[in-house]
């Protein structure tokens, strides 16, 4: 019986944390990444299998960085 009460208490605590504390906490200025995640609903798996499939975007990013001002070796 005591065990079931503990389980119930712990579950309730976790529920309250998730239902009440986490959403409020996400409004904190330092948790921008959490808010961004909620807005963009980023799915890492889908991202890997579709967006980055041929790695062309990565190559483009590196190439763009290479030519970016201030990063070049050719000063």
């Amino acid at each position: 019986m005591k065990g079931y009460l503990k389980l119930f208490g712990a579950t309730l605590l976790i529920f309250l944390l998730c239902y009440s504390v986490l959403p409020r906490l996400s409004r904190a200025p330092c948790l921008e990444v959490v808010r961004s995640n909620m807005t963009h609903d980023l799915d890492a798996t889908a991202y890997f299998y579709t967006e980055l499939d041929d790695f062309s975007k990565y190559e483009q990013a590196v190439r763009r960085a290479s030519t970016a001002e201030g990063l070049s070796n050719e000063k």
Partner: protein
Amino acid sequence: METMKDRLSGLWKTEDWWAVWLAFILFAFAPLVPSIPKPSKWVSDPLESVPPDMFVPLLTLMIGLGLLTSLALVFMKEKPLRFLPAFPVVFIIAVLSFMVSSQKTINAYGLGYAFWALLVGLLVSNTIGTPERLKAAVRTELYIKIGLVLLGGEILFTKMLALGGPGLLVAWVVTPIVVTFMYFFGTRTLKMASRKLAITIAAATSVCGVSAAIAVAGACRAKKDELTLAVGMTLIFTVLMMVFMPLAIKAVGMDVLVGGAWMGGTIDSTGAVVAAGAMLGQEAMNVAAVVKMIQNVMIGLLGFVVAVLWVTRVDRDPHGPKPSPMEIWYRFPKFIVGFVAASVVFSFILTPAIGDDAVDGLLKISKGLRSCFFCLAFVSIGLESSFKELGKQMAGGKPLILYIVGQSFNLLLTLIMAYVAFGGILFGRP
């Protein structure tokens, strides 16, 4: 003395080999499976996560995985009839863990299924206790080993090697240095009693968190409590790093690509890397994600190297004779062979033979199955662990010190490498 016949019979009597067979059976049938059901995102109503049309696919998955696993138990001369009625309970807890982790806010915090599966299992075992009947389906090692062999298929050497120097430099130079540093720091400076715990924490910190911890813990046959501790720390610190690293990068005005590479090389979870990279923009996200993907290849190599070192050096009697190659093979964890074999088959045989698109289709299915097995494993670990034992593993806070010191070293070294590779220092700019 074991005869050749005994050793051959191990092919269909041991858990290691059955993990390999079951994973390859799943790979073989993957083309026939349209998709693996996975609870979808929800906001306030959990039932949105598992709509009615998902019940039948979930039930089919449960029956399929249950029957397949019990097939191995039959050959291993264990008790499938005790396993089968208990398996649905473990499976349902796993589905619940997926459901909770799919809640939008929780998901945004990066608290994934592994966290919830562990937590639910730990709550049950430390409050009401794991019922005796349920223990028949608590098959942590078997689930982990099957999941690992399936993970092997996702490690495509060919794709990673095609990515060029900068990413490889950040991911592959730093990782072995950090693993070695952490192992020796843990065992020699901190004098941790368990070398297995030290190497498991080192792998979790320097490669990619949960998957690397599982692979290395399996390779050195670490205890479940040791794996739980390593995974628990990595899950908590991943959330902290996902939140604070983009802020720090922005605050100091660091170049976003250097920042992306830095995060890709240090944040443990792949999902968290993508989320943190997105904070710096699309280009930084791409670089962060690719560095992480290249680093993920290290899981296989590290698992293999650790398995070899443990068999030939760490677990070996220092006063005994040098083990023969046959002895090394006999003691070698065979699922690591399956893991490497899956990677080689997918990289060098299937990709050239059937093409990238077909391989991606196969991997979507195997990835779904792999997540299921890892989730079942974490539920099982939770159901088998006690807070008391976990407290003992924390002895004097040494594992935490190891994690923090190792991660700090990792952050510093990766930052230097990110500057060298992406800051226009080492690689010539066109």
